[in-house]
């Protein structure tokens, strides 16, 4: 049995965020070295501020400045910082209740070892040199044994408010297509298309998934299909897809390879796009180094009768 494949899968995207009035003031404040909380209905000051009261659900808009100094309420040691975290060296994740606030803010505390952290210790904000209106404008917290710093009197009214931010999200996975697809991919490297037959309904799945989605049983019997097949339906693509080096218009088709009970998808070439039709008989065209056929081209056989492929659209 061929080796089961694995490969890194990186999912990343720059999401845009519309901040709304409260987060807009909060992040603009950080840019100006001001930390804002919001006054809740029960008199507490919530930091970071929220738009709606967690007790009464009423809209909250009264912003209150709190101090850049505070007290650690709890912590956890991060011995191996990851990409994108606030500090590159080991640090403590801390919840800090800033002076004047009733709730705590999550951030990083720059200390050399866990022995240097304790609940109840006094800390202050270390501001980033360049600030843009983001939570990273607080570079981190640092130990502080001086006098409390009184907060200013900002109410959140700033010039040139930050209305939106870009939040870069990234997830790192190790992807494995599993046994069945690994075998399928291994066969493709020999330019053979191998599916699997369901022992119960006898349908041949290409690509195989290792199980029949209808019967819910494992599939193991390997069946070579194709190489030729029938275009069962298609569309003509007139808009250029991102990261795809294909000139438009081109034909994207469902192709039922001979012997398969499910159509797979591919591009049709070797024929003008406006002459492609349902029932057209095609065969794969391989290019050196390609994992999949580059496209499918007409075999020159007569078109298949609709009755023979109408269940395979």
């Amino acid at each position, binding site marked *: 049995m061929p080796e089961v*494949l694995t*490969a*890194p*899968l990186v*999912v990343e*995207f720059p*999401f*845009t*965020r*519309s*901040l*709304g*009035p*409260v*987060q807009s003031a909060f992040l603009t404040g950080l840019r100006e070295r001001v930390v804002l909380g919001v006054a809740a209905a029960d008199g507490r000051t919530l930091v970071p501020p929220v*738009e*709606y*009261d*967690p*007790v*009464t*659900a009423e*809209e909250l808009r009264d912003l209150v400045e709190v101090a850049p100094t505070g007290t650690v309420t709890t912590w956890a040691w991060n011995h191996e910082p990851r990409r994108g975290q606030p500090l590159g060296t080991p640090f403590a994740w801390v919840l800090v209740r800033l002076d004047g606030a009733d709730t705590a803010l999550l951030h990083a505390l720059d200390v050399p070892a866990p022995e240097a952290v304790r609940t109840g210790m006094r800390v202050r904000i270390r501001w980033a040199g360049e600030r843009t209106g983001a939570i990273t404008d607080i570079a981190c917290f640092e130990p502080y044994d001086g006098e409390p710093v009184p907060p200013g009197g900002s109410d959140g009214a700033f010039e040139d408010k930050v*209305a*939106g931010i870009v*939040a870069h999200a990234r997830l790192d996975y190790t*992807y494995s*297509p599993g046994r069945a697809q690994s075998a399928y*991919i291994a066969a493709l490297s020999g330019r053979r298309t191998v599916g699997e037959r369901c022992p119960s309904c006898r*349908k*041949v*799945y290409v690509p195989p998934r290792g199980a029949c*989605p*209808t019967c819910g049983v494992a599939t193991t019997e390997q069946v070579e299909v194709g190489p030729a097949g029938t275009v069962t*339906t*298609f*569309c*003509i*693509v*007139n*808009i250029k*897809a991102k*990261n*795809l080096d294909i000139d438009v*218009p081109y034909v*994207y*088709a*469902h192709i039922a390879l001979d012997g398969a*009970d*499910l159509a797979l*998808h*591919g*591009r049709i070439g070797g024929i003008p796009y406006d002459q492609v039709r*349902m029932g057209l008989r095609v065969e794969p065209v391989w290019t050196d180094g390609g*994992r*999949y056929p580059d496209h499918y081209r007409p075999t020159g056989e007569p078109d298949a009768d*609709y009755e023979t492929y*109408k*269940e395979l*659209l």
Partner: protein
Amino acid sequence: MSKEPVAVVGIGQTKHVAARRDVSIAGLVREAARRALDDAELTWADVDAVVIGKAPDFFEGVMMPELYLADALGAVGKPMLRVHTAGSVGGSTALVAAGLVAARVHGTVLTLAFEKQSESNAMWGLSLPIPFQQPLLAGAGGFFAPHVRAYMRRSGAPDTVGSLVAYKDRRNALKNPYAHLHEHDITLEKVQASPMLWDPIRYSETCPSSDGACAMVLTDRAGAARSPRPPAWMLGGAMRSEPTLFAGKDAVSPQAGKDCAADVYRQAGIGDPRRDIDAVEMYVPFSWYEPMWLENLGFAAEGEGWKLTESGVTELDGDLPVNMSGGVLSTNPIGASGMIRFAEAALQVRGQAGEHQLERARKVLGHAYGGGSQFFSMWLVGARPPES
């Protein structure tokens, strides 16, 4: 013991637009929820539970957004549930909420669905660069267009049917103040002259990308008796699913859709949907899906759905109006789109649909589907409470 009848007593929507840059996601959902409560003349304290839905988290990249939206929806200290069934989620979210009332778990439930597409990228979220797999060759419409061609081949429908649907829905949207697209200068010629994107689908036959939220207040008989405005009554509701791709799948008229509709009709005592149902709000992201769903839902025989569209039956003044609100073709905050269908059906039977109100709307079907025709959810609402 029979089920508790479920009534819709509050409906709220945001004005759907391409980008609501003035509000956060919390601000967006809040607006719809507040309007639904105002419509029902209720406060946050009157709500026993909150059921929220949206399309995949990947779209906006906020993982489990319900956690952070609890404050905005007054859900702190109450049960809050998140539902996800791809594009049909707005419908299935409403049905989960309705189930809580029908089972007498809760008396009054706030249900809401949303999408903030301006903060997301649905195309990206649905086409991750999975190793070893062939890259997606065709984009969003490319997934649907071959099914449309298959329908045209099967039914013999003329090429123009898709443009008729788009022209109708865009004109209907002009009567709906909450619709995203208000194309005041729309003409049939303009639809037919719009660029062919994924032949046979033209640009004007595709849905927009919207920011929006929709909320409903569902309640029991006692709640309905206190309602300041006429309630809509749920007469039947069902969900069905099937794999996206399997040998024998009928992508033109999926079995799960037929089964789902049959279940709703059985619950509601509908013998002939064409005769017994007055109008439909159906999930039509590409115009050709109107005739396809007319057949799938039993309003026309197989291969005949396009004739209803072509002869004007589905127009606002027709015998079976479809998508009086302008539909998904005019407004598509993906996660909310299904709930908008359900809510618009309820607005009609309540007589609250404003300029797009039908004269005769005693029983109206709300329909949603998603995930490559994998998930279906539907409800039938009526102006009168269920018998039994």
